[in-house]
Each structure stands twice: as C-alpha cells, then as structure tokens.
C-alpha cells in the first residue's frame, strides 16, 4: 500500500480513509463482513432506517440497465428499534465506523428518528436520506422541494443536537441541485451526500409492462457517474466549504478520484459491490496508488482540484 495520507473529514467527523459503502448497498455490514474486515472502510453507511419495520415494495425489485440498474426496494428494513438493538451494536462491535442513514415519510418521522438516535454511542455521522415521498405533501419527494427539504433538516438538527454531523443526501432529479443544497445548508446540514438515484423505468420486452413492482425505480451504477460528477462539481463550486460525501457509479479508484477532484471529501461505493463484493477495498487501494502517481501526499489536497 502507498504512503498517501488517506484520512479525511466530513465536518467534525474524521475518517481514516475516504471509501465508504453507500446506503442500501451494504445492508448493515454483516454480509460484506464475510469478504473483508469492515475496518478497511472509511465508514459503513447503513441502509436507510425508518421508524417502523417495513416490508418494502413488491417484487420484481430490480432491472439491469446499460451500465446501471434500477431498484425499487422501497426501504425494506427492521425499523429503528431493532436496528439500535441488534444491527448497530453488531456493526460497532466490529470496530468499523458507522454512518447511520435515516428516512421518513413525514417531517415528524425524521424528528422521531433523530430523538431515538440522540445520544447513541459510537455513531460517526447521520446521513439523512430525503429522497422519500412525503405522505403529507401529495407524495412529493422531500429532496425535490425546497421547503420540505429544509423542514426535514431543521427538524433533524433540533432533535439530534450537535452530537453528530448531519449529512443531507440529495436527489439529482431536480432543476437546480445547488438550490436544494443551499436550503439544507441553511437549515443546519454539516455536509451533503450527492447523489441519490435518478428516477427511471424499464419496460419488459415480453409483457410490455413496467418490469418493476413499483413501476419506477432508482437508477444507479456507472451510467449515472457523469451526473454525479456534475452535481458534486456544481455544489462544490457554490459551497466550497461544505464537505461532500460523493457517490454514483464509482467502480474504480479512477472513478473515486473524479468525484474527489470535483469536490467530494469521501466517496460511497454502491452498485459496484453487487458485482464485486471486494469493490470498496479494491477501489481504496487503486485510489491510493493513483493519488501517489499524481504526486499527492495527502488526499485532502486532491479534494476539489478540478476547480483550480
């Protein structure tokens, strides 16, 4: 391994290296732990957890697309109580760093989740997934509406206190992502996660109906990488001091470096793990040697270099 200092920060949370898992692409860690020690990761970002247990959407839940995939998992999960009782302790016990992702259907639900998380030991940061439909506002996705996005982050801020940095995860399915970024920053987000999936659909060649049980799904994987790089670049240009956790189609160290150069302080690996369970570790190693090749002695100097 190279000598490059890979340590990085998201607001006041420090991490030994910048390669994280992506929420919903690594469950709560147990499954990937079969393949590598989770301490190899900068952090495990857990699957977005909701207040109550949730069965998710009907199957089929995925469709492969050119260099990408659609998913309509629908946030299946055990709910916050069981998560705090079983999944999180297990994860922290491995010595891995944990970023806990939360999701809600109403502003209040985000508030309640935050209160449950307040004071929980060992968490490194909270990622707030606001790409969920707001049941109180005609199912409009929080991340697609300035007021809703702001309201969620304000609520999380108030209820969680100053214990963990709040990372607001934004959707690329908006006219101007930097506007939404501005709102959540004003509302108290310490950092941003960019980007969530793009809304897409695949129609079955036999039935001529949408493949997914949920009809539409979220597009992820290499196909969306150019959109992720653009979103990170735009937001970093406007808010250079706000740390960004970048994600979207990262499958190699070179891809991670693109996101970092665009302005990401750390990078989540999602869909790539589905085709290669060792992807996060490989990507970390490739990134380190690329940074070395470019003459960087620490990764911090590479963050946002595309803007210089």
């Amino acid at each position, binding site marked *: 391994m190279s000598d490059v200092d890979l340590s990085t920060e998201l607001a006041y949370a420090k991490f030994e290296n910048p390669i994280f898992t992506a929420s919903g*692409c690594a*469950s709560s860690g147990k499954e990937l732990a079969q393949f590598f020690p989770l301490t190899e990761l900068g952090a495990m970002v857990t699957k977005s957890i909701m207040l*109550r247990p949730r*069965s998710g959407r009907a199957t089929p839940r995925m469709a492969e697309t050119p260099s990408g*995939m659609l998913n309509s998992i629908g946030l*299946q999960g055990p709910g916050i109580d069981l998560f705090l009782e079983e999944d999180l302790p297990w994860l922290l016990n491995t010595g891995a760093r944990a970023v806990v992702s939360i999701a809600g259907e109403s502003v209040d639900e985000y508030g309640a989740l935050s209160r449950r998380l307040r004071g929980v030991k060992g968490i490194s940061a909270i990622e707030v997934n606001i790409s969920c439909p707001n049941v109180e506002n005609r199912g409009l996705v929080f991340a697609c509406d300035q007021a809703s996005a702001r309201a969620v982050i304000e609520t999380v801020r108030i209820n969680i206190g100053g214990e963990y940095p709040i990372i607001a995860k934004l959707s690329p399915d908006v006219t101007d992502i930097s506007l939404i970024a501005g709102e959540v920053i004003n509302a108290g987000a310490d950092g941003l996660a960019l980007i969530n999936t793009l809304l897409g659909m695949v129609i079955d060649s036999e039935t001529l109906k949408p493949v997914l049980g949920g009809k539409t799904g979220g597009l992820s994987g290499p196909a969306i990488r150019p959109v992720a790089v653009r979103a990170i670049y735009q937001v970093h240009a406007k808010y250079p001091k706000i740390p960004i956790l970048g994600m979207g189609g990262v499958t190699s160290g070179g891809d991670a470096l693109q996101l970092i150069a665009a302005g990401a302080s750390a990078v989540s690996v999602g869909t790539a793990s589905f085709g*290669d369970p060792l992807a996060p570790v490989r990507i970390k190693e490739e990134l380190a040697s690329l940074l070395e090749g470019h003459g960087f002695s620490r990764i911090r100097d590479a963050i946002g270099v595309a803007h210089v």
Partner: protein
Amino acid sequence: MVVDEGWSLVPINPRAEVTQARILSNRKVGAYHHIAFEAGEIGRYAKPGNFIAIAVGGDFSSMPLHRVFAIYRAKAEGIHASTIEIIVAAHGKGSEWLVKQSEGSQLRITGPLGTSFPLPAEPVNVAIVGGGYGSAPLFDLADHLKTRGCRVDAVIGASTSSKIFAPLDGKRTVNSVTVTTEDGSAGVQGRVTDVLDELIDRQRIDLIYSCGPMAMLKAIDEVAQRHQISHLISVEEAMACGIGICMTCVLPIKDSKGIVKMTRTCIEGPVIDSERVLWSKGIPEGTWGAP
C-alpha cells in the same frame, strides 16, 4: 426428519470468497451448457444446493450485476485449485455471454453462496424432483444421500426432451429416474407432479428435495402436504447481488417464530424448508412491516 449439518441452513454462507476462476471446459448438453471452472477454494467448501455468482461481460461490460448458478458438481482438488461445474441455460444477455466464453477465460466468481440441502439423520426414502436445469444440484445431493444409506428416486421434468438434464453418472447414482416432458418427447408425457403421487406411495417416500421454477415447487408442495411429508426446496428469485446486500431476491417467508418477513433468498436460501414458504404472490397481509 432432517438434520442441519453444521451450517446448511444458516444465513450468510461463511465460506464465501471471491476468486478469479478459469474455464476448464464449456460444452453443449442438450439445451444447456455445461461449464467447468477452476475456482480457488470454492469447490472445496461447496455443499449441494449452494450457488455461485459470476461477473459477466468482461472488462468493458455494460452489465454491472452478478449472474447466479447452482453448483452442479464440486471437487475439492483440481490440478491447481478446486473445481466447480454449472449447467447454464442461455436466457438473457449475461448468460448468453457466459455460454460463449471459451476454455481458459478468466471470470470473477463469488461463492459458495447460500444455504445447502440439510441431510436426513437416518437412512430414509428420498425423492429428488428437478425441473429443467433445476435438476443440476440434485445429483450431487443424491450422492450424499446414498452415502448415508438413503434410497433415492429421481423425477426429472421439463417442457421438452432437450431441456431434461439427467447426466449418465447422475442417473447411475439414484435408484430410479422418471422423466416427464410436457410435449411427450421423452419419458412420460406430463408434469413431475403427475408421477409423484404414485412414486411417493410406491417407494414410501419420507422426504422430498426439489428444485425448479416456483410454479413447479408450489405444485410439488401441494403433493407433499397431501402426503404430510417434509419438503426441502431450492427457490429461484431474480438476484442482483447474490450476497445479501441489495434486497431484490426477497420472498415472504416465515421466520423461526412464525413471523412472515420479506426474506432474502440469496442468504437465507436458496434452500428453504417449504414449511416456511408462503406461496402467494406479492406481499401477503400480515407480513412484518407491511403497510
């Protein structure tokens, strides 16, 4: 009736590894391709019922997701590494690519994955029932069953004769083989369930293992329930990752406390005790966390 040999049905296969596998041979067998790999340690730890996940499309692939295949045979010792064999039905893009790969090609394979068939504690009378390529993992299972003194009768069905997978040495392992085809091109015309009732009675079957399409498993289960005999099935749900991290491969399945959950069949399956399975489509009412 069945004993769980250590970890047959334990979720998350503890032996899984990622390896660069090399194709040793690839040849057509009826409607299928029989592909053998030299695959690190996978063959050493594979148990009947386990599967592997294969990355497809090569270095510049547009297909980011795994393709999964039941292990047909595994050998702990090859020349350089252990070997595994699979039976592939070319179906969509990835499997079409796979069957075109030639000897010597290197592929990234993850395995062994999933649960495996638990074996009976005593020598009992067993029926193995396979549909299409679903028979592939059953012959290795039969081998293990025979070693334990079981009688094993096989029923192998498919729509047509070219889709019957019943290799000679597999046939030799079992006590009898009944073939059914829907078009009557081989064996009995009809479905596996058309011959199963009679077989159960005739051979006093104590236990059924089956593998094939969901509709077939369901039909077999009805027969098994009627006869009140145990039934272990290997299910096939669409899988994106095969390793438990994507939540696409779920089925409504009862947990040990009887609670129905949308369960990942890649880590708590593919082999499942049919008792636990709800055969309804969609998310049944009362499923844990259902709206």
